[in-house]
Each structure stands twice: as C-alpha cells, then as structure tokens.
C-alpha cells in the first residue's frame, strides 16, 4: 500500500466509517502501546470534540478537507490547545499553550485530528530520547534499544501504527535518525519550506518541521498541507509550483536520474552490515536504469564540528527565555530575581540542556567568538558550496542515515560519543537541504535507513527517488 492516510480520509468522506471511530481506535492503540512510552500526553478531549465536528460536517455534505478524520501525533514541542506542551522538559511541565502552531492549524483545517503529544529528548537535545525528562521511549523493534532521537516518540508511534503520521522536528537529524532506527520514513523538508511558528525553538538556523510516516506518499500528502509561506514565520520560502503527492500507484517508473553516493558516508566508520544494505539499494537504482556514481564531499567531515558550535550557540540564545518569570517552572526557594533565574534554570534544565547552553555561551563569548563561532560559520560556507557544486552534476545525493542501527540504552553515556551518532545527518541540516530516511532493510532484526539528500528547495526530487526505493523494494 502506498498510503495509510488517504484510505482513512476516503472512508470518512464517503461515510463508510466515522472520524469518531478512527479517533477511538487510535486512542486505544495508544493505550495498548503504553509500555513503549511514545507519548507524553493524550489530547483525547479535543480529539473527540473535533471528530464529532468532522462527522457532523460530513453529514451536512460540507467539504471537510483532504485529511478528514485522520488521526495524527505531534511531537511535544508543537504548541497545541489540548494537553500540555512540555518539549519533554521539567522546565515546561504544566505549560498550557495559549495558541497553536501554524502546522497544527493547517492540519486541523484539513480535517486531521491530533490525538497525542510524542516524547522527545528535552528541547530536542539528543539522539536517543534518553534525555527526555519523562523517561525514554522504547524501540518498537527491540525494547532494549533506543528509538533514536530526538523525535523518537513520533517515530516509534508511527512504527507501532498508533497513527498513520506524526509530526517531528529535525535540527541535525532528529527526524531522519529515529526514522532509520524504527524502520519508518522520516522526511525533513528544505529549511523554510514549512512554518515553525508555534514550535519550541532549538537552533533557528537549522530547525525544520517534518514528518514520520510509513510510506513516502504519506510524507508527500502531509507536506502538501503543511508547506508554504507563513506571515508569522519570516523564514518561510516560496512554495514549489506543484503538489508533492502523486496519488499514482508506485509501479510507475520515474525518469532516469543521476545519483551521487557520498564517499565520506560510506567509509569504514559505518557498520559493514549497514553498508551492505545501502549497496543493495544502490544496485536496485542501477537496475532501474539510474546512474549511480561515487562523489567526494570532503567538507562533510567537518559538519559535526561545525554543528556542535553553531547549534549550541543558537540553543543558548533560544533557551535564554526560560527564566521562571513568564511561564513554566519557577524555583520556589528563590528570594531575589537573580535567584529565580539561576534556581529555575539550574533545576529545570537537564544535563544535556545545560551542556548545550554553556558550550553555546562559551563559543559566543568574547575572545572565543572568532576562533569558534565565526570559524564554524565560515566552514559552513565551504560545505554549502560543495553541495551546490555536486548538484550541478547529480539530481540527488545518497548515503546511510546513520553509522549503524539502533544502539542499546546507556551504551552512549559519553556526550561526544552520542553526538557522533548525528555524523550523517547534520550536513543536510547545516546546508538547509531537503532529506529523507527510508527503510533499507534490517541488520539482525533492527532497521537501517537510506538517506536521500536533495538540492536546496528541490523537495520534489528527494520524494521522487524515495518513492523509487519502495517501487524497487
């Protein structure tokens, strides 16, 4: 099947089954999968009320939108009316959003219904969900394994089939990595393609909203709804002049493409079995008539170092707002305003939040700014230019989504070792490129992902080749 979303919308629109029934089923699946800790909260009350609205509108013959009655899950860093919005941080426990994110509003306008808020590493700082202040999410394919992060709750929810799609955010791989570890499709659109208004900010120059789905077509179906300019997010870009969903059966072959395999992504530090799975996918591309060539992008070897300067710098700025004054946790023991700030932040943030805020303030501080921050942003230019040049020859670039399959809980307790998990995903983030992780097969029962990266703004090319991996599977 190439879509799990459209059959639901069609059944609701055709009157074969009510939105209320779909919502109840999703809520009971969420309940049944509780041991995996994929959700921080359910938004059952609003979900039931909205389902009723959709069903009433259908009976009246009104147009309820392309996603009528389709249940979905939002990562808990999306502001939603029902339930709390915590970003999985103690500092936001109890926070009731006074407005909703643009993406949530657009999905609701299309008839989709949010049923719950997914777990994540607090403030999206992490690659495993082990940094969640609400406990880690378990990998549906093996409970001893992490689901990846930071959108681990979103990926695991979709892998468990609680809902046909979940929203995630990707700053350095937070959609693609958990998609790879859980065996689902994780799509990170071009930077600026989707509004971030009403999403808890992490690193504003690379934060992107995207999707976790079971098929590529479903990623396209959702992208059609959420993409586009938003007056409330000045970084949104002009839309591409076509829709992403094809509706077509996946049997139709696509035009012959030129595919570049990033040499640096296929080196020895990628597990041999994962590399073999990627090679198999590349063979399938060749057999389908596409050109597959190796291309060297040396600057990608600097990406992680650039990322861990630029992103903490932006994190330190974005997390400055959590001061215990306007919302969220406030240190009850404080007697002065500065004690409120320090007591709130020291007790409300977890270790990883504190590390990133402090590294960020360090690389931005006087005396270190040129050596770290400016130098990293300059190296970023080299990376952007290398990608641009590669896209003069190739339609898309590919490689693994991660150096291997999911690791076990506690296996990467050293912060730098954990950071290295993102080594394949941060490049596309720094350059703002659209990228997807699609399932590439299993290594001893645990899934690996193939990553497809497109030129800036060319989301279409990425989704098209991603569909091809399903057709040739």
């Amino acid at each position, binding site marked *: 099947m190439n879509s799990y979303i459209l059959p639901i919308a069609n059944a609701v629109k055709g009157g074969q089954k009510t939105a209320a029934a779909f919502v109840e089923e999703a809520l009971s699946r969420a309940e049944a999968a509780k041991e995996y800790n994929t959700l921080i909260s359910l938004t059952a009350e609003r979900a039931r009320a909205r389902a009723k609205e959709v069903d009433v509108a259908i009976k009246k013959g009104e147009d309820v939108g392309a996603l009528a009655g389709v249940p979905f899950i939002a990562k808990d860093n999306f502001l939603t009316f029902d339930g709390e919005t915590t970003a999985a941080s103690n500092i936001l426990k109890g926070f009731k959003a006074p407005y909703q994110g643009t993406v949530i509003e657009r999905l609701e306008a299309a008839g989709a219904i949010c049923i719950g808020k997914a777990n994540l590493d607090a403030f999206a700082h992490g690659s495993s969900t082990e940094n969640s202040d609400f406990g880690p999410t378990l990998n549906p394919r093996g409970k001893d394994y992490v689901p990846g992060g930071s959108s681990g709750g979103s990926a695991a929810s979709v892998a468990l089939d609680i809902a046909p799609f979940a929203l995630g955010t990707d700053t350095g791989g937070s959609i693609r990595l958990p998609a790879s570890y859980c065996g689902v499709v994780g799509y990170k659109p071009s930077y600026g393609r989707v509004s971030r208004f009403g999403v808890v900010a992490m690193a504003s120059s690379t934060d992107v909203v995207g999707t976790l789905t079971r098929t590529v077509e479903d990623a396209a179906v959702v992208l059609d709804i959420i993409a586009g300019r938003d007056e409330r997010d000045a970084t949104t870009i002009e839309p591409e002049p076509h829709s992403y969903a094809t509706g077509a059966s996946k049997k139709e072959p696509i035009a012959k493409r030129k595919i570049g395999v990033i040499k640096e992504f296929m080196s020895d530090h990628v597990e041999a079995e994962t590399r073999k799975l990627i090679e198999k996918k590349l063979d399938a591309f060749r057999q389908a008539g596409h050109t597959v060539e190796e291309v060297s992008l040396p600057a990608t070897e600097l990406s992680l170092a650039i990322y861990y300067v630029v992103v903490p710098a932006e994190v330190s700025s974005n997390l400055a707002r959590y001061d215990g004054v306007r919302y969220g946790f406030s240190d009850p023991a404080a007697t002065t*305003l500065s*004690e409120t700030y*320090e007591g709130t932040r020291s007790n409300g943030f977890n270790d990883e939040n504190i*590390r990133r805020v402090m590294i960020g303030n*360090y690389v931005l501080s006087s005396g270190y700014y040129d050596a770290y921050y*400016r130098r*990293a942003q*300059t190296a970023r230019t080299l990376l952007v230019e290398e990608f641009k040049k590669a896209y003069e020859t190739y339609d898309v670039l590919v490689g693994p989504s991660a150096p291997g399959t999911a690791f076990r809980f506690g296996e990467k307790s050293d912060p730098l070792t954990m950071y290295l998990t993102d080594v394949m995903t941060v490049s596309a983030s720094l350059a703002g490129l659209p990228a997807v992780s699609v399932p590439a097969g299993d290594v001893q029962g645990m899934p690996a992902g193939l990553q497809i990266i497109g030129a800036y703004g060319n989301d279409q090319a990425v989704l098209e080749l991603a569909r091809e991996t399903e057709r040739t599977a």
Partner: protein
Amino acid sequence: MADISIDDVKKVARLSGLQLSDAELKKYKAQFAEILGYIDRLEAVDTKDIEPTYQVTGLHNVMRDDEIIDYGVTQAELLQNAPDTDGGQIKVKRVL
C-alpha cells in the same frame, strides 16, 4: 584551544544564568574539554576570504504591514502560565 579551566566554566555558568556545584563544574569541565577538542579540527580549515553562512534561504528583511493582528488570545489566557501575578501583571521577586 581546548584548554578550559574551572574558572572558564564558572564564568560561562554565570553568563548562562546557572548556579552549579563544584562537582558539576568539574564534570562539565572534563566534558567540555572533550567536546571542544573535537571541534578544534576546524582550526585546520583555510577560511581566508570566505564569508560566513548565517542562514540558507537568501531572504532579506521580510516585511509586513505594521498593523495590529488579533491572535484571539486574551491577557488572562497569557497570564495563566505565569508563576505569580498581581492585578493583571507578572510579579517577580525583589531585584536586590
């Protein structure tokens, strides 16, 4: 470049609005040395005559009309998340 002292960590903690124990300062010092040690590979990059990239969209000064937009959110709704309020205003602890 990766030589980082306890005083450096203390200073950064203060800049970050954080109050850390001696044990925490020591832990972060060791972790920062490792992380900054990794980042030091950027030193080898020839960055002469290259402009930094701060954003990738190429958008500049996106303007909109300077008008009041009704977001449909009331003052009371916004204040309900505040830890302490008084007469429709947010209340904070004394400054000194």
